[in-house]
């Protein structure tokens, strides 16, 4: 469970987040949406403990995130960032295995059976078992993105944060990943996922958090968020709403 209480965050003298209050329950998939630059990544980084809030508190699993050591944090939550990085001479398997860092003390250098199992299961979950021995540097950006997700899965944490996990993925793989995240949430994980496509968010998330200019504009079920006027005012674009045969709502920007 994650609880944000009056979270505000300043970086370089600029207020990036303001007055964020939210509770995200275990077994929930929360999609964070909003226009570019409104603070989606900053919010995830704050929950991950990479940015300390200027005011307010962030609790993960009952402990304030800032009070935890990096190891304790890494055992409670994984964070799949969207930064790209070039790696020399590292196999896919080696990269995923780095997700096991917090499960070892510094003198425990040897990988255990549970590490092997976690790496294998993570690669299987993103359907990349056959890539295990491939050099990371030879992968496409979409494949690299999936490897980072596998590293987050191998970390085996009750909370998983993902920043734009589908940004480099084709339609089919993007939906596979979102379906996997939904399954993981159903299995009890708490998942918070920043995502650009509002309809993808609506299709897979239990709730949507809509951010606008660093503030939480809406936090509700997908249908309610998509139906509300704040979506148009936040994105500053007129929207067409379509009700699918299954009853769920989708939105499309109207031509200017």
């Amino acid at each position, binding site marked *: 469970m994650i609880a944000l209480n009056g979270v505000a965050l300043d970086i370089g003298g600029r207020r990036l987040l303001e007055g964020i209050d939210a509770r995200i329950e275990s077994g929930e998939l929360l999609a964070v949406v909003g226009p570019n630059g409104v603070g989606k990544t900053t919010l995830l980084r704050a929950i991950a403990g*990479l940015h300390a809030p200027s005011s307010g508190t962030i609790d993960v699993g009952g402990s304030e995130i800032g009070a935890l050591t990096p190891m304790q944090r*890494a055992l409670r939550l994984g964070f799949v960032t969207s930064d790209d990085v070039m790696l020399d001479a590292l196999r896919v398997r080696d*990269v995923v295995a*780095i997700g096991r860092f*917090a499960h*070892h003390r510094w*003198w425990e*250098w040897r990988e255990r059976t549970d590490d092997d199992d976690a790496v294998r299961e993570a690669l299987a979950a993103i359907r990349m078992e056959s890539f295990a021995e491939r050099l990371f540097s030879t992968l496409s950006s979409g494949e690299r993105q999936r490897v980072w997700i596998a590293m987050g899965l191998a970390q085996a944490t009750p909370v998983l944060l993902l920043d734009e996990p589908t940004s480099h993925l084709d339609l089919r793989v993007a939906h596979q990943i979102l379906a996997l995240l939904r399954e993981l949430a159903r299995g009890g994980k708490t998942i918070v996922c920043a995502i650009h496509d509002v309809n993808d968010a609506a299709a897979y998330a239990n709730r949507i958090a809509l951010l606008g200019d660093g503030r939480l504009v809406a936090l509700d079920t997908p249908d309610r968020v998509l139906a509300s006027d704040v979506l148009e005012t936040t994105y500053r674009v007129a929207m067409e709403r379509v009700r699918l045969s299954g009853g769920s709502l989708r939105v499309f920007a109207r031509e200017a």
Partner: protein
Amino acid sequence: MRMVLLAALAVVAAAASLLVGGTTLAPHEIVAALSHPRGTDAITTIVWQLRLPRVCIAAVVGAALALCGAMLQGMLRNPLVDPYLTGVSAGAAAAVAIAILAGVSPAFTPAIGFVAGLGAALLVAALARRGAGIDPNRLILAGVSLSMFFAAIVTLAIVRAQATDYAASIVAWLAGTMAGRGWHDLVTCGPYVVAGVVIAAWSIPALNALRIGDVRARTVGVDVNRAQWGILAGSSLLAASSVVLAGMVGFLGLLVPHVARRLVGSDARVLMPACALTGAALCMVADAICRSVVAPAELPIGVLLAFIGVPAFLYLYLRGERSQ
């Protein structure tokens, strides 16, 4: 298997280095002397008081510089970083040059070099500090700038000392040499080298995780700030100890991690021991060559390693670039 071969290479290098010296000794005489350390004959004295400490010092210097290079290159994710980036050698050189010019007894120069080297590393670290951690770009900028500043002090000292014998002493120290070093120096540096090696071992899991970048390393549980300060402290201790034992020995700390990475890959669990073994072997062989090619005089080891190291490094680095 490759680690076994590297260990065997280090043993062969040590044996070959023991054979080389002003007096020709047969292998069986060296073995006999090694098995009777309390002997009073000339051969035992040569082996135990001259050659063995020299071989041990070369091994320690080579291993220390290679570990130091591997730690800093791993921490900064920059293959062009060398152990002297932290300003250790330049700071030590400037202090030693001033000490020699001031007529301070040569007996004190290693200690002066050690303290000044660590002082320079502290200054570089203070300049590179950002929040609770270290900014890699600032570290490189501060290290390079301060090293240039200290190099200017050394040049000024040499110019001032040209009319005296002091200039030769300064230049000899800058060129790197293990001449005149013995068990006493090794024992003096021992605790700092051991501390540096323990820190190097401690940093291995963090170095492995840092391969995926600082931000991602933080997300998997690495205390990046603590790892950076630890690596900086460990590498400074190792570099300062090697400066005390051999003066300035260039290129070894830059070259050996590249060679070792080619042999065993980038996993720090095997890369670090491989660096230590390769560095020790290379330094022992280089020292043996320095003692023998212009005997009874000695070639400065820093000069020899630069002659071998520059083309070898360029070959390895450019070949690696092309293969990518």
